[in-house]
């Protein structure tokens, strides 16, 4: 992969980002007769003075292209103004919520990926046996049932009928998270540095995924007191179970199917004919090829790490980005909603870019020109 390709790919990502934010600007103007309408909601029609004041404040009195330039300026300067609900800078509001979404999604993803690989790999070697049949049947069931429904049922069962778990929130009421920011960012920065050094030394592309993740977890455990972690874990248990129920199977099924496809490849026969033992064939040849599709799928879900799931967070009243988006939407916090949309697009495009680079490193067949 040469520098020209990297530069090209990054520029291309910016182009997509630009298209997305441009659409974001024009779509509401196509949908609503009066783009100021969401802002004027609740203001009586005859309050002309007030209505015009609102129009003026949000710049709707200016020509569209001026509005567009003002809008674009926000992205260039990263200044999305102040949240209407929270009366705080929009970015601060958002960054207070991101870690909560990450608690669920990072833990959920780690558990699902590890369990998915183990289950899928085992099922692929024991086709037609109990592990394999269980996976196939279970996959049929989970794909047929939407996860929000499972979430509702679980809340009813395990938070109300049999109250093992709390039904709402991320911490017990009255508690608040105490986090040592200096330690957190210290360890996190250390992890980033370690990633760079390890990658330079070992040249293994997976380091780009694994080291920052391990660093993040280390940072959390270093900066947050154990009692807080325990309380969060207790609150996160039920949503995590719901997340994992769905995603373990999808990872496991993917691993199983690509393992089965790879095991029948001639190059596995070549590897076995060399006299390599089972373990070497499995890790050196089968896994390396079978897990390639996983990279794309993990990369795709990277955006969800920061974004959270709107429905699940809503059901569990989890204070993450998903619930924040809903609030902003319902109350009409235009500035906040705009920033969240931008953040989602940015993360998605960035995650795709990263996945692309890692995939290129892992699969030499993809020519980067």
């Amino acid at each position: 992969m040469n520098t020209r390709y990297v530069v090209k790919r990054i520029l291309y990502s910016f182009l997509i980002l630009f298209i997305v934010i441009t659409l974001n600007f024009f779509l509401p103007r196509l949908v609503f007769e009066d783009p100021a309408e969401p802002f004027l909601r609740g203001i009586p029609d005859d309050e002309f003075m007030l209505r015009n004041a609102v129009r003026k404040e949000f710049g709707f009195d200016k020509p569209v292209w001026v509005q567009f330039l003002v809008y674009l300026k926000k992205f260039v300067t990263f200044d999305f103004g102040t949240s209407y609900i929270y009366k705080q800078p929009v970015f601060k509001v958002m960054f207070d919520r991101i870690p909560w979404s990450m608690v669920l999604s990072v833990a959920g993803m780690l558990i699902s990926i590890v369990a998915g690989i183990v289950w899928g790999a085992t099922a692929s070697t024991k086709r037609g046996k109990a592990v394999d049949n269980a996976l196939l049947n279970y996959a049929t069931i989970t794909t047929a049932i939407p996860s929000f429904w499972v979430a509702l049922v679980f809340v009813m069962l395990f938070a109300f009928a049999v109250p093992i778990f709390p039904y709402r929130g991320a911490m017990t009421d009255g508690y608040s998270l105490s986090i040592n920011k200096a330690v957190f960012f210290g360890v996190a920065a250390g992890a980033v540095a370690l990633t760079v050094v390890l990658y330079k030394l070992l040249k293994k592309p997976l380091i780009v995924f694994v080291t920052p993740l391990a660093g993040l977890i280390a940072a959390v455990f270093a900066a947050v007191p154990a009692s807080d972690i325990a309380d969060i874990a207790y609150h996160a248990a039920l949503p995590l179970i719901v997340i994992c129920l769905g995603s373990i199977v999808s990872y496991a099924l993917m691993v199983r199917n690509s393992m089965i496809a790879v095991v029948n490849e001639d190059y596995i026969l070549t590897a076995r004919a060399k006299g390599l033992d089972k373990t070497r064939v499995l890790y050196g040849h089968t896994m390396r090829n079978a897990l390639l599709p996983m990279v794309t799928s993990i990369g795709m879900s990277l955006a969800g790490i920061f974004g959270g799931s709107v429905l699940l967070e809503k059901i569990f009243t989890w204070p993450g980005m998903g619930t924040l988006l809903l609030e902003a939407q319902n109350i009409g916090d235009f500035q906040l909603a705009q920033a969240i949309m931008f953040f989602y697009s940015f993360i998605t495009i960035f995650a795709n870019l990263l996945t692309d680079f890692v995939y290129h490193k892992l699969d030499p067949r993809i020519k980067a020109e």
Partner: protein
Amino acid sequence: MSRDGGITLCAAGLKAMFVTEAGFLKAVEGVDITIRKGECAALVGESGCGKSVTGLALMRLLQTPPALYTAQKILFFDGERATDLQTATEAEMLNVRGRKISMIFQDPSAALNPVMTVGRQIDEIIIRHYGLNKKEARSRTVGLLRSVGVPDPERRYFSFPHEMSGGLKQRVLIAIATACRPALMIADEPTTALDVTIQAQILRLLRDLQRENNMALLLITHDLGVVSHMADSVYVMYLGKIMEEGTTAEIIGAPLHPYTQGLIKAVPSLDDDSAVPLQQIPHNVPNPMKKPSGCSFHPRCAFCTGLCRAKMPPLIEYGGGRKVRCWRYIPDSSANGGGDD
């Protein structure tokens, strides 16, 4: 032909079957194969006759399930020692595979791991069997690449399979298969997937390496042209059974079995009289799950009799070590059938 050097491999009663959703498939039904030191034995037959399965079964490389296989014995002679591969443990087999017996496959594009450099794939077998470190392995690998005719081996070491042509990939696979100077190489249609010009080069390379290393070669092919260039002895296989065996001169020059005769008539270059049109054996190979009664070749045979339909002939000695499985060569059987069809 080096027929004086003793035996390298002697398999008897080799059977392999597959339990599939469609049914029970007997791919190999009691095959005896003997390969002498340094000689090239060819295993020929049409597609689906069980040639590849035979090769894999000899190395115990078939996946079980779906495969099941047995043999009375698979004796492998290594110097003074004889090992029965049939009863050897998997750990013993790991030391035989790649080191004592190696294998190359039909499609070089599919037989190399696409995400590993070819150099590493050769290193791997050297490290596995000689316990060298990476650096030592690499210098050997470069030497091997050179010996199989890969140009610019220092650079090619770092190539990925997709960056090489089919011929080069097959050379890499040959490098892997000769890395430990095995006593026997099983080559399963090594040139079928290659261009005609490349085919000749690869065959010449195999032939040279075989002579240099005094290596026995089991050449699996359906190409009788290849057989006549390469092989010392020939096994003709049809639907899991050996139909005829003998030296190349005997089989090509004076085939006994109607199936062998049919195969030879279907090859243009072997037909010295160009006025005689090419003849294909009528009909296709039957589904191996529904093998015909009696002699499995009888529905396609011009000499078919009632006896052929009723009973599979035994593989009998036909003088001078050659063998054939056909009622026509079993003296008191001709009276039973006669002229029918």
